[in-house]
């Protein structure tokens, strides 16, 4: 009886480990909320869009980072604003992607099954961040900011959520590839 129970436990452990490995390596992207996936599946895009507004119809952006040993992908909050994609990474969701971006800002994003290479630039500075507040709040939380909005004094928002914002820009042209026509 004990041997059978042990065998069953080992079987369950193997199943769980196998499932985790599949999710992390072979699933083609994140499949479980809160747990990263592996390399994104899709067709490499022939060209990079000059205006990413079309992406806004997606609720989340699939993002892959190859900063560390294993490729890591997640579905992230995002916003296409002023023609460029912006990643929104609330600290409450963990900092797995943000830590990778600090080590290597190159990312791959998947939209409609197409893969695009981009480079993440952290948005800093009060003016740049302030310009994003109204569009972010509208898209993510369905709130029109309205006139007369002002920042509360430090600590004024009881649970003021930290959210890192990144603008995605095109990677520099590789020297071994001809420039696009």
């Amino acid at each position, binding site marked *: 009886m004990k041997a059978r129970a042990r065998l069953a436990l080992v079987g369950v452990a193997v199943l769980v480990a196998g499932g985790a490995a599949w999710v992390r390596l072979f699933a083609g992207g994140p499949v479980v909320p809160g747990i990263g996936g592996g390399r994104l599946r899709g067709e490499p895009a022939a060209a990079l869009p000059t205006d990413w507004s079309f992406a806004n119809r997606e609720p989340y952006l699939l993002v892959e980072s190859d900063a560390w040993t294993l490729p890591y992908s997640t579905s992230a909050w995002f916003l296409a604003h002023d023609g460029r994609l912006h990643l929104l990474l609330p600290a409450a969701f963990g900092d797995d992607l943000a830590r990778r971006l600090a080590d290597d800002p190159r990312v791959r994003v998947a939209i409609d099954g197409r893969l695009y290479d981009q480079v993440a630039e952290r948005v800093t500075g009060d003016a740049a961040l302030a310009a994003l507040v109204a569009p972010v709040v509208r898209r993510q*939380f*369905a709130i029109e900011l309205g006139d*007369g909005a002002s920042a509360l004094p430090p600590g004024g*928002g*009881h649970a003021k959520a930290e959210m890192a914002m990144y603008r995605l820009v095109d990677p520099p042209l590789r020297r071994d590839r001809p420039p696009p026509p």
Partner: protein
Amino acid sequence: MKRTAILGALALATACGPWGPQGMLPGGPYLGGAEASRVDDWSFTDDQMLIGIETRDGWLRHSVTILCVSVDGRLYVMARHAPTKRWVRNVGRDPRVRLGIGGRLYAGRAVRITDPAEADAVARGFLRKYVGIDAPHAHALFGPVPAGDDRAEVWAWRIDPAEPRS
């Protein structure tokens, strides 16, 4: 052996785990009973970034981590991309919920907000709490999203006492 298998299957069937949400991972039922006393002022939740909500789907329990806002002592919870969320569908069928806040459990009833003025107040409370912005003229766009608009479909609920007021 059979008993272990049945218990394991039951634990798995209730959701992803038997102990409420684990961080951003959904879970099953909270262990333990709900807070007995009724809460008349929920402003103590202002310091809570995230809370857990346990919803009912028949005899199953499904719990997730969500945002909350207190306005004039009342508690509100919100969902982005609401129609796609399992907990939202559950609340639509059975409004009884339990909230996990700061290690304690509170029973309540989720009532969907339809009054625009109440929704605007929730939106302003949300901006104060989570974004650190005072926006006196903020306007909530909660509810169905018209075609061509790319905002998230946000729904909000007021958490009323578990038993209707007599």
